[in-house]
């Protein structure tokens, strides 16, 4: 029986490439040749030899990071119960937030009508962690174990105050829809290291804190005005892992191969008749699709992972679609050459019942995030992989709604919030920036990081000067960082 993974009449791969795909550019040929047997990818790090795509002249300078995994915490985690220790608040519990602190800053319509703004200290304790002695919440014991590997920015800030605009801003550099997402920019700039997989993959999970909250939007991984092939491919937690990946019932691999051979033959005849080289390109996309059909199931099958590795990500790692499972899947994507893995973990929007919900939510993310660091280290990938953890804004020091002995909520707060970075080029074990006693304002003007600054930094670590990565659309050169952004040097090693 013929190998179903090979096109008919193309047992000799060279014959297939030179004869069957006339008109294809050399680069594309290279890509096809290099990863013809994608299904055989071993579970260890194996990447097609020739990186495909990417812009000439990039990277602009030697890159520290070859790839990124962005662990986005959707809904906006509170800084008070996680990374920004504010012991003074215990004494001020229930007192009104002083006007001098708020200083007329705008509030959302959800709490601007409150008669009072009672200070709500964290319901959870903090302790020093690691050699660096960073104060961390008791909700993050595993993160405490890797705290010497990460750099915490306590002074992120943004202008957006509602979820949709804020998350859109975080992912695309603009509050208004239409700009390419960070991952799409990176895919556009650097291309993929694996021809059989997309350069930019998106994974989503629901939090156990506040279920189904907040919504996500396709635009967060869209390519905007960049060519469509750079948009993020969302891997799904149920059904086909990639949309339309599976052949319909009744069609097996052999049949599919057989049909594609006919398709290639007929397309080739048409190309001879009309002379359009685009026809060969389309045929090549079908071949790539065929290989993806093998590569993706191999990738998403966690069964071949050693039990100890799976266990290290925590008890939920074996449940598909959880944050833990996605962290592990993310690592598998990274080691197969996917350039940018974007996770979204929902459930952080704790306007009410924060003490209860944030505990669950931290449990979702704590062990898997830490395990990811350890796992990447064990595979020698930590030093050239950038890990980003954080949400779209922070939360208020005052309680939204009633403050009781055991309960409170927090509204949106864009003026300061925490985020951590780890891996390639990051100064491990550092804390960058300080906020005031209410975590309301940044008090270190030299140590703060706007969303544009963060994106500039991510690009910088990938060897990209954010001011020089542009795309002309409607006559204007657009950038991810618009006309803003400074690399946050304080977190770089």
């Amino acid at each position, binding site marked *: 029986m013929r190998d179903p993974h090979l096109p008919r009449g193309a047992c000799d791969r060279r014959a297939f490439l030179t004869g069957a795909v006339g008109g294809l550019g050399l680069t594309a040929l290279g890509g096809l040749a290099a990863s013809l047997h994608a299904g055989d990818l071993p579970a260890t790090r194996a990447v097609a030899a020739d990186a495909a795509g990417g812009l000439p002249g990039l990277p602009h300078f030697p890159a520290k990071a070859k790839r990124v995994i962005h662990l986005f915490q959707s809904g906006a985690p509170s800084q008070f119960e996680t990374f920004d220790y504010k012991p003074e608040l215990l004494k001020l519990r229930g007192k009104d937030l002083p006007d001098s602190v708020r200083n007329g800053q705008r509030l959302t319509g959800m709490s601007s009508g409150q008669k009072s703004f009672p200070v709500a200290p964290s319901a959870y304790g903090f302790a020093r962690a690691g050699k660096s002695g960073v104060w961390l919440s008791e909700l993050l014991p595993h993160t405490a174990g890797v705290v010497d590997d990460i750099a915490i920015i306590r002074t992120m800030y943004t202008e957006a105050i509602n979820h949709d605009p804020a998350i859109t801003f975080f992912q695309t550099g603009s509050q208004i829809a239409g700009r390419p997402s960070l991952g799409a920019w990176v895919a556009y700039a650097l291309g993929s290291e694996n021809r059989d997989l997309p350069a930019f993959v998106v994974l989503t999970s629901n939090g156990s804190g506040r279920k*189904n909250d907040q919504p996500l939007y396709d635009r967060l991984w869209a390519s905007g005005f960049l060519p469509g092939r750079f948009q993020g491919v969302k891997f799904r937690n149920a059904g086909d892992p990639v*949309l339309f990946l599976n052949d319909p019932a009744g069609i097996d691999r052999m049949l599919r191969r057989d049909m594609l*051979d006919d398709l290639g033959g007929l397309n080739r005849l048409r190309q001879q008749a009309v002379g359009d080289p685009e026809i060969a390109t389309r045929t090549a*996309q079908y071949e790539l699709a065929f290989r993806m059909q093998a590569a993706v199931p191999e990738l998403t099958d966690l069964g071949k992972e050693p039990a100890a590795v799976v266990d290290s990500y925590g008890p939920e790692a074996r449940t598909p679609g959880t944050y833990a499972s996605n962290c592990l899947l993310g690592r598998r994507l990274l080691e197969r050459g996917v350039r940018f893995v974007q996770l979204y973990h929902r459930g952080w929007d704790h306007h009410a019942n924060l003490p209860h919900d944030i505990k669950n939510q931290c449990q979702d993310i704590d062990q898997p995030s830490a395990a990811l660091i350890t796992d990447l280290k064990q595979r020698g990938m930590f030093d050239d992989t950038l890990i980003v953890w954080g949400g779209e804004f922070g939360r208020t020091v005052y309680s939204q709604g009633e403050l009781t002995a055991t309960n409170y909520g927090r509204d949106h707060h864009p003026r300061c919030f925490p985020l951590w970075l780890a891996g390639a080029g990051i100064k491990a074990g550092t804390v960058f920036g300080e906020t005031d006693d209410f975590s309301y304002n940044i008090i270190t003007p030299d140590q703060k990081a706007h969303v544009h600054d963060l994106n500039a930094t991510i690009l910088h670590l990938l060897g990209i000067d954010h001011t020089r990565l542009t795309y002309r659309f409607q006559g204007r050169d657009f950038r991810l960082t618009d006309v803003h952004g400074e690399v946050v040097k304080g977190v770089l090693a």
Partner: protein
Amino acid sequence: MPDARALHRHLSRACRFASGLLAAIAGVMAAPCPACAGEAKVDFNREVRPVLSEYCFACHGPDQEQRKRVKTDLRLDTRAGLAAKLDDIVPVVAGDPAHSAVYQRLCASDLDDRMPPEKTGKRPSAAQVATIKRWIEQGATWEQHWAFVPPARAAAPAVAEVGWPVNDIDRFVLARLEREVLRHAVAATRATLLRRVSLDLTGLPPTPAEVESFAADASPQAYERVVDRLLASPHYGERLAMAWLDGARYADSNGYQADHERAMWRWRDWVIDACNSNMPFDQFTVEQLAGDLLPSATDGQRIATGFNRNHRINTEGGIIPEEWLVETVIDRVDTTGQVWLGLTLGCARCHDHKYDPISQRDFYRLFAYYNRVPEPGMGKEVLAGTPPTMQAPTPEQRTRLATLVAAAVAAQRHAATFASPWQALPISAAKAGKDTRLTKQKDGSVLATKPAEHDTFTVQVTAPAGRLHALRIEALTDPGLPGMGPGTGGDGGFAISAISLAWAGPGGEQAVPITVASLDGVAPASGKEGQASAAWTLAKGGAAHQLVVTPVAPLDLPAGTTLTLTLGFAGKEARRLLGHFRLGFSPSAAFVAPPDQVAAEHELAAAEAARDAYDTALPTVMVMEDMPKPRPTWILQRGQYDKHGDAVEPGTPAAFAPLPPGAPANRLGLARWITDPGNPLTARVAVNRMWERLFGTGLVKSSDNFGAQGDLPSHPELLDWLAIEFVRLKWDMKAMVKIMVMSATYRQASVIDPAQAAADPENRLLAHGPRFRLQAETIRDQALAVAGLLTERVGGPSVRPYQPPGIWDELSNYGNLHNYQHATGPDLYQRSLYTIWKRTTPPPDMVLFDMPSREYCQVRRARTDTPLQALALLNDETFVEAARVLGGLMLGAGGTSSDTRLAYGFRRALARAPSDQELAILRAGFARRLARFRADPAAAQRLVAQGATPADPGQDPVELAAYATVASTILNLDETITKE
């Protein structure tokens, strides 16, 4: 010469427009240079302005703030600026590059002097600098940017091959080809041409009968007859609407966060109808921008204004309304600019435009036109959308409503023929014990809103003079209540758990013993009927009902006594309040109506309920209106909603001509300005877009940007010829499309000659016919049509075709758009422009093929080619079913041999017969797979079971499955998803 006067009028308008610009095409600096005689003359617009725009305008261009920021007064985007002397420096001295600062700075060797500055990373090529030098030497002729000068009609040029052109389009195209020594292609075959023009004009492939009839028609008018037939097809309007909806950012949801559904499909159908009735483009424009402001605006003209309500609307909790109102209005300005003017007005939101003469003030003056709609900044999460809205029944619905109204009037007349013992008993006060809001209505009834659980209504009336035998409670319907009421329960029912009556006597409240009974025979009653402490429940609403409360002994109360009726709501059904009611009394003991009167009243109640229910369910649409007192508009500094600069009034950009005489200072004036024949942009932008649709690329490639940074037209004279022709033909869209598709240029074969393609890889010179991938909707529509599945119904509410399970729910459970269930029956197969569009999660099979997200205006689509598209066409249920059903057609209607069946399927998709080689591949593939399925009939069974349309039980599943695989191959051919 009836046209001469029109032409004169046109030219004088054109001149008026031009005078607003800095004198067009003026060679003011021209000092002829004898030295360069014989050298090719540098074309300023083609060769010089793009260089200045790219390398200089960002700092020395229209943006005043930027000039301040870099501390310069030097301005190179105007004629005056180029000649102005500043500190002994003159940017351009005609004939003298050595003293022209622009040239000197461009080639300065000292990096401190050299422009543009090193840090911009921009550097013109040596050839570009040499061109600037030559331009200065030749006299530095300056011209206004081409697109801001009204089009000029050039005579069609002479061509060598006089036999080829069909119309003037071909003369412009051929002259250029001859100049470049390129050959045009041969004419496309009849089959290819028929498929091409059918897809272009209707978005659907020709039917086998149409193919045969065209092949059989030997008359020279055969092709024109096809074109006329297609232009008259109702699918022509659908095809045009598909193109228009992207720019109009049309969708079925709000587009932010919860992304709730809202109804705008009546606007979409207005577009289809307008295109089908060939509404002139100027009217099409005026009605969409300002139909509501036309004298005695019709419903249609008001529905048309939905164009500017298609934008996204933010409904997220806690937003600051003013911020999002500003975004809404900005979206309208930006959209208007792109759709009609081909300008990137949005660039002037935060600062003056960097390249085009649009100041920030201009931007906010345009903003002011759109800033007077009585709309909230925070949207509503209801199907009707955010105000202002209007009811927009279809003509059929309007007729049906009139019938129901007439029936209610007749029932009313009939009921009025009976004498009624009941007299009105005006309610003097109605109070709720909890938070339910009770509001007295004009007709004396009381409406309950914001229902609170476990409430109690206390209703007071002044007792009538004389005897009171009975009190009547009428439970009435209301469109605001769930299920029309009369209750507040989800189905319109209610559950009164206690009814009591009392009067204010000298010693305080005196309880009145009562009995209750249903009066209309439709048993809204409870087990406690007839008891002193009574209850009354109605399980399901939708119609009015009556209850009579009878004092055990008739009441004779002193005049002016207050009677109090108390209605309690308790127990398990405490949420189901009485939502709308009225009181009456009978002074006579004979209050029980005879049966025919009961029947008449019952009939009346039913007729009114039917009328009201129908009326409430009629479709609505969001529309434009102007407030009586407009909101003030300010220039917003840095584009921020809360940073107010100078106040501004509505107005058009200062660099262009002012409003036409007599145009009002509102949206209608703006619409008149846009459609003024002297406007240099509107007609050009419109014909360029028609061209782009047919040929794949516009004559101006950047069809979304006609500004200084846009592309230059490939055939400027042809573009102007088309624009002028469009105006001359009174903006007749069908006529323009017909001119284009009748041209020999359009009718060329799309066969690519490699040698010629090397010289013109993008075919900008049109040496062959178009060849590009079909757009998303057409790929699906064609598959449905080829398989015979397509529902051809035009218009109607959006429908739900197949979509992989969970697409919506995996990202959001907010709003009402979740738990997607695909339609059954004809809705499953209606054309793709009717597919429900949830902006935050649009249909994946459309987005994969580059359909825009419809979150913002996008007038140009990308055309990509990805492996995910291949997976969709092979494996998406839509295409699997279409292939399987096409396979069934091949087997059932394709003749008796496998060869005829294979050829039949091929012809259905491609309008042509397969070649021998092609048929050989199909035949061999079919045979192999037939053998495979014979060996594994269970696999065949699984394949033929796909999709909602059942397979013909008379067909052999094995054979059908084998044909289905061939059909799938045919539907996946490059040629099938390509327009040739």
